[in-house]
């Protein structure tokens, strides 16, 4: 019995994930700068050019940036199969994503269709390379576990998000009308409640019990959640597209939001029951993230049931889901992934006895500083969504500060790694 795809030791070179992780905070910083530059215009409505530019700097430049890099790293561990040509895939996807995210933001912010067209090509290329590589890895898995199913559905949701996004880019860049204007609802829904939410949940089932030693998620939730979310999202999309069954779209939205509230609250309750009680920045980021997801979902229920509720609530949902939810969880994960990978690759080069432990790469207090600054940024952004003038400037400053603290922290860890590697006798890598 041969297991050609089963290589449990496979970790891609450290440069594969690190280039994504070190780039991401710079896009968050760019989003904060653009927010300050465009002022309250970013918060006039959900779909102003300024709001779309800021949003995509965060969702593509920060979220997708880290999620792609982390997935190339974690797939071998989670499902036991390496991503083919990881180094080349990472190089191409990273370069195209950087150019694509920047051009899309420029296309929106400056009203330049040419930039939007460039973004459509480069982003289409970045995601195509990534999706082909990950789909190949997923078809080669040795064991079809619940985790594999979750990752597969998240990847499928990403593919749908990309196709919907390209349709919208055809409208902005080439003036080609989309088949339905419901696409403007569907694209963010698949990106956030599909790809991002399913990936976070799939990772949560593994890492929440493992980081803090909590009880495991209830099996029906762990197994049923990804499938339920995917099916509900598909049904909701059909209802939104046709729009002719009164109440159906709202009912499906409430069910979907209810699913996310259940997931977020379950995570918070499990974390209360954790065995490891020592203070931990990653835990704090997960708590901010899960509270934000629960709140975003609750506000989404209100909007679905009461269409006459203020439109500013849409902005609040976006801020809570994107910066409060996804950006927080990602920040927390980076503080485990980056020091661990640093230690892991260093001990492979210098031998385990010579490798400094994880907290030498980045101590607790710089991480805790980031937690506090980020919490202020989330609160300020929520307030600015409801009262843009003059709070948008406070929010922009806080978001910029959070991005800078994170960038400094990650650079410190990467520099420590490089210095230790240089100090080591020239063996191995």
């Amino acid at each position: 019995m041969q297991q050609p795809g089963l290589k449990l030791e496979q970790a891609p070179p450290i440069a594969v994930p690190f280039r994504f992780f070190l780039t991401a905070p710079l896009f968050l910083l760019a989003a904060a700068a653009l927010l300050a530059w465009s002022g309250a215009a970013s918060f006039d409505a959900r779909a102003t050019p300024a709001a779309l530019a800021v949003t995509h700097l965060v969702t593509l430049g920060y979220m997708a940036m880290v999620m792609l890099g982390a997935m190339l790293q974690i797939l071998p561990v989670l499902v036991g199969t390496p991503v083919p040509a990881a180094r080349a895939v990472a190089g191409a996807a990273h370069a195209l994503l950087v150019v694509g995210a920047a051009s899309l933001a420029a296309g929106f912010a400056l009203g330049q269709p040419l930039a939007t067209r460039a973004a459509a090509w480069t982003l289409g290329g970045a995601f195509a390379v990534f999706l082909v590589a990950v789909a190949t890895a997923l078809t080669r898995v040795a064991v079809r576990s619940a985790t594999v199913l979750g990752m597969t559905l998240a990847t499928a949701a990403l593919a749908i998000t990309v196709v919907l996004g390209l349709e919208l880019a055809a409208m902005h860049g080439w003036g080609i009308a989309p088949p339905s204007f419901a696409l403007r609802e569907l694209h963010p829904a698949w990106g956030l409640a599909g790809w991002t939410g399913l990936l976070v949940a799939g990772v949560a089932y593994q890492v929440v019990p493992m980081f803090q030693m909590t009880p495991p998620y209830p099996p029906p939730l762990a197994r049923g959640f990804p499938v339920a979310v995917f099916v509900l999202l598909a049904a909701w999309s059909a209802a939104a597209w046709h729009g002719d069954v009164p109440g159906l779209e709202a009912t499906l939205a409430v069910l979907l939001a209810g699913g996310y509230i259940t997931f977020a609250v379950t995570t918070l309750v499990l974390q209360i029951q954790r065995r490891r009680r020592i203070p931990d920045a990653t835990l704090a980021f997960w708590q901010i993230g899960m509270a934000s997801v629960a709140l975003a979902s609750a506000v989404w229920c209100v909007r679905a049931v009461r269409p006459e509720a203020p439109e500013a609530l849409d902005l609040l949902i976006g801020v809570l889901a994107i910066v409060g939810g996804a950006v927080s969880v990602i920040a927390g994960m980076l503080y485990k992934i980056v020091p661990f990978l640093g230690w892991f690759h260093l001990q492979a080069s210098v031998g385990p006895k010579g490798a400094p432990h994880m907290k030498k790469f980045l101590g607790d207090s710089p991480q805790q500083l980031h937690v506090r600054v980020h919490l202020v940024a989330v609160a300020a952004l929520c307030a600015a969504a409801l009262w843009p003038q003059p709070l948008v400037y406070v929010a922009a400053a806080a978001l910029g500060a959070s991005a800078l603290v994170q960038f400094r922290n990650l650079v410190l860890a990467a520099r420590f790694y490089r210095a230790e590697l240089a100090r080591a006798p020239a063996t191995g890598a």
Partner: protein
Amino acid sequence: MPSINATMSGDHRACDARFATAEGAAASGDWTQAAAEFAAFRDAMERHLKLEEEALFPAFEKHTGSAAGPTEAMRMEHAEMRDLFERLAAAAEARDGDEFLGLAETLNLLMQQHNMKEEQVLYVLMDESLGSEAESLLAALAH
């Protein structure tokens, strides 16, 4: 009959519990308890690792016809864990809190991602391929 996966995963959780107690004691500066709990954790881990290396892995390798591949990677990670055990014991001896907690964080990540690979993939394959042989292996495990 419980599976290899259920039995060995249960053992992982039991070791985790001991680890968390030792770490908590070190964090609160109770070095007598930390050293005792850490020693108990290390013993439990050694039993677990030995069982894999001396019984489960060889049976699986005989079945697949290769000592390379997934079990080889698992053995390598066992060696990395043992190095960290050594350094943790020295830190507990020296009552060096920062060193102990930093090493504990590192060991937790190494151990948990290792367990994940075993529980998600390797044990599942063992249960599938070893069949009735698993029963006798598990009986041996009980002792």
